[in-house]
């Protein structure tokens, strides 16, 4: 077993973000395919499943895994910046993240196992735009902003505006995801992560729910939810959010939550699970989120 087709791909190591953008722009203009290689945990698997068939159509690989501009985590005030090439292991090890956004290390711990966490990046997770992306579920709950860059300049968009369909997004072929910003939840906020996977590690989510809530005087003042593997894209659960936001917590009935959840998800049968089961679990996780929130 080896993957001989990998030899068909060229690789370049641009030394700055600027040159990455230029290379992407040149090649996109010529209609040539280019791929950014970060941790490689998605790309190598995709090539194993569907190897390139000949040199002319094999995409050129730009290694961005060590570009300083894409790396690092920093906090300024309540805003947290996470570079796109930040790995799950880095998220798990960062003290500010652990203290202020424990949702992220909790999610990271559930991604694959340590080998995947050491390589896989949040940028790669979003770029693949799979509805099963755990990291994106967490970013959705945090209402993160996605930062993109191309030769045409930078742009920032709300993560809820990022997806246009199954594995499709607003990102243009010549754009790089540079990172994410997140408004860190306040002290005493509630953060929730639960993944229901095919097993306890090395598992793709059948359903996972990330949640962030702030409550003051019994009213929900901030609410973010991101659900994984229940719709063509990461689910933001708008109906549930609308139902609960700025509502007194004790007036949010389970039956209403169930109805709202069911309105927000459209899961399917696949080799990992069934649509019916996913529907059921979606409801259960949303209920658990609110149950735990109420009992705090």
């Amino acid at each position, binding site marked *: *077993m*080896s993957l*001989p087709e990998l030899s068909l791909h060229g690789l370049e190591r641009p030394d700055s973000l600027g040159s990455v953008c230029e290379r992407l722009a040149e090649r996109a203009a010529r209609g040539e395919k280019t791929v950014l290689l970060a941790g490689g945990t998605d790309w190598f698997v995709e090539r194993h499943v569907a190897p390139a*068939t000949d040199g002319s159509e094999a995409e050129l690989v730009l290694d961005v895994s060590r570009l300083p501009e894409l790396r690092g985590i920093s906090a300024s005030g309540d805003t947290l910046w996470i570079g796109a090439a930040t790995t799950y292991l880095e998220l798990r090890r960062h003290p500010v993240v652990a203290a202020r956004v424990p949702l992220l290390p909790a999610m990271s711990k559930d991604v694959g196992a340590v080998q995947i966490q050491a390589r896989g990046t949040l940028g790669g997770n979003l770029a693949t735009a799979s509805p099963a992306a755990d990291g994106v579920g967490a970013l959705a709950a945090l209402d993160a902003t996605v930062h993109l860059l191309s030769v045409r300049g930078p742009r920032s968009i709300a993560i809820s505006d990022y997806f246009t369909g199954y594995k499709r997004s607003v990102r243009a072929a010549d754009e790089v995801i540079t990172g994410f910003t997140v408004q860190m939840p306040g002290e005493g906020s509630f953060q929730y992560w639960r993944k*229901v996977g095919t097993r*306890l*590690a090395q598992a793709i989510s059948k359903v996972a729910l990330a949640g962030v809530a702030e409550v003051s005087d019994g009213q929900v003042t901030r609410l973010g939810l991101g659900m994984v593997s229940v719709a063509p894209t990461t689910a933001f659960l708008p109906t549930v959010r609308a139902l609960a936001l700025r509502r007194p917590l004790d007036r949010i009935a389970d039956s209403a939550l169930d109805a709202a959840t069911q309105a927000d998800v459209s899961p399917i049968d696949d080799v990992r699970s069934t649509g019916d089961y996913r529907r059921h679990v979606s409801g*259960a996780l949303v*209920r658990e989120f609110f149950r735990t929130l109420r009992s705090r």
Partner: protein
Amino acid sequence: MSNVGTSVPRTDGPSKVVGTAKYVDDLSMPGMLHGATLRSPVARGILKRIVKDPAFDWTGITFVDATDVPVNVVALIQDDQPVLASHEIRHRYEPLALIACDDALRLARAARHVTFEIEPLPAIFDPRASFERREIVAPPDNVFGRYRITKGDAEAALASCEVVVSGTYSVHHQEQLYIEPQGVIAWFDERGAHVHGSIQCPYYVQKGVKKTFVLTESDVDVVQTVTGGGFGGKEEYPTVISLHALLLAKKSRRPVKMIYDRQEDIEATTKRHPAEIGIVTGCDRDGTLRAISIHVLMDGGAYVTLTPVVLSRGILHAAGAYRWEHVLAEAVAVATNTPPNGAFRGFGAPQTIWAVERHLDKVARQLGMDPLVLKSNNVLRVGDTTATSQTLKESVGIGECIEKARTASDWDRKRALGPVVQGRKARGIGACVFMHGAGFTGSGERRLKGRVALDLLLGGRVRIRTASTDIGQGTETVFSQIAADALGLPMSQVEFLQPSTARVPDSGPTVASRTVMVVGSIVEAAARELKERIDAEQAATGLDRRRAMDALVFRAMGTAEHVYDTPRDLEWDDATYRGDAYPVYGWGCDIAEVEVDLDTFETKVLGFWAAADVGKAIHPTHCKGQIEGGTLQAIGWALHEQIVWKDGAILNGRMTNYIVPTSLDAPPFTTLLVEAPYSRGPGGGAKGIGELPMDGGAPAIAAAIEHATGISMDNLPCLPEDLFERARKGRAA
């Protein structure tokens, strides 16, 4: 000096932990080509034509199809499986052609330039449909095997029993998923055919090569390289890949290496046989079991391979570890258009034990009894007769197994407590009682006449030559312990020769939990004979031990070859399926404690207590390792593993979606060894235990789930989706 009974460091351990152990993919040969298999894209059809794209440059690529095969059969029980299909295609992954090239990239490209013209035929995937002959997919009648066991008069007895319970149970496919995929390197030279590879049974491969290439024994050398797990999956399949590699080697006149990609391995190689089992039992109101009637329908897949033997072991275990006055057991295996099912640890027994154990849990529920009490009250003891009317004469340690597991797990308290529900989680505990026949069925060993040779080497060393392979279970270490003790030598003086059909005698295949018990006893006998020779030499010459040993070597007296001395008092009738089905049985009691999430139906195994009667634990650590490893495979079969099929194709042939347990899914194991010695076992009474641990896990887990949730699963698997569906149906009803 005693090595037997102590957990000496494993002899092949050091090379494995430093990375020098050579598995087949770590080897290469000068001028070696890489080989690949081109397979059918349909489950059933007639191969009309193979088209090699004329636009592709075929230089340097060796191409083989059925016309290149001297005798186109894979020799096994029946010669029904072709090495390469020439006309009829019976499953979705049937090999149709082979290619080889020294450049892996060109090989991959060439594979895309071969197409097959096939006239599709209707396929059958449901064994019931096959049994009803809705289509004949394996002439004459789709039937691969049939057995019937009778004892007393079950039908009449059932009619008069106080409590009659019936049920239908089913089990699904299971992939062995050894972590080293199938692979071989093969070549021809002036001495004949050579195969080196990941192989459980080198003599099986030799038999296949002889047949297909019309060679004699001395023309074929099959060598086992360090093997990364087998579990039955490398019992019969390596013959196929070896024949393929040899065909390419013959045509190209180069050594050829074939290593399966994981997906190819999952899709094309054998899996555990699915089965459907109907049971009716009768008992007294106090729980005394009287009569059982069992019907088994097994799915053999596309070709016979080992199916009749698997079916046989299945039906022989179908009445469980219990006393019944009346037994009627009927079993049929049929063909379907899926890849041939084959050997997998347990070999038919886990399938039927699942059914009978689930059934007895149901009986206990109806009687309002603790299931472990019901089972324990009816379990076989010395002097009782089994379903085949075999009287058990010795080595029945089940009573102690049950007691040990029950005490260690705190069964009585936990069971009486009922399900413990905390928040949205419910805990429960379940048990399984089982036995597993050790060694070949009936007259198997007598026919086989397994042999082993021991050689004295200069310098006071001894070498063991056997065809029993170490595929991880520790054969090499255990045989060395047995030989060292019988000879009175330290372990460091004992060597184990790499199995090679040119250099080791045919000890029989490494299967059926027979290696330690049967082959180990031949090793012991040969070692004893050598010791007698050494003692005699010393007595006659007055030489010290080392010199006496050397003297024997000089006089060519240093080799002892022994044949298995089949116990003479065993009686077995193949026609009536009555008599001593196995020389002795391993016994086990498994207790599982689980926590089921009532929202997501995920089952977490909190603890697992496995008590096993192994006769004598020659190497306690290995013994426990076998039990835990086998048990986790059984837990995986119950809770995680599932092959997803569509039109005969496997949709989840990758490790990302064929789910086996990780270290976090595995429970902490408490493994309790019981030793009820077998008078003919080596080392003071060892019995076979390789397969035993596969039998108990699934029923114990299902029983625990039922205790926790009230959801009673008759069919495997018990994935969260299955429990959810079952609960939903329960609520609806």
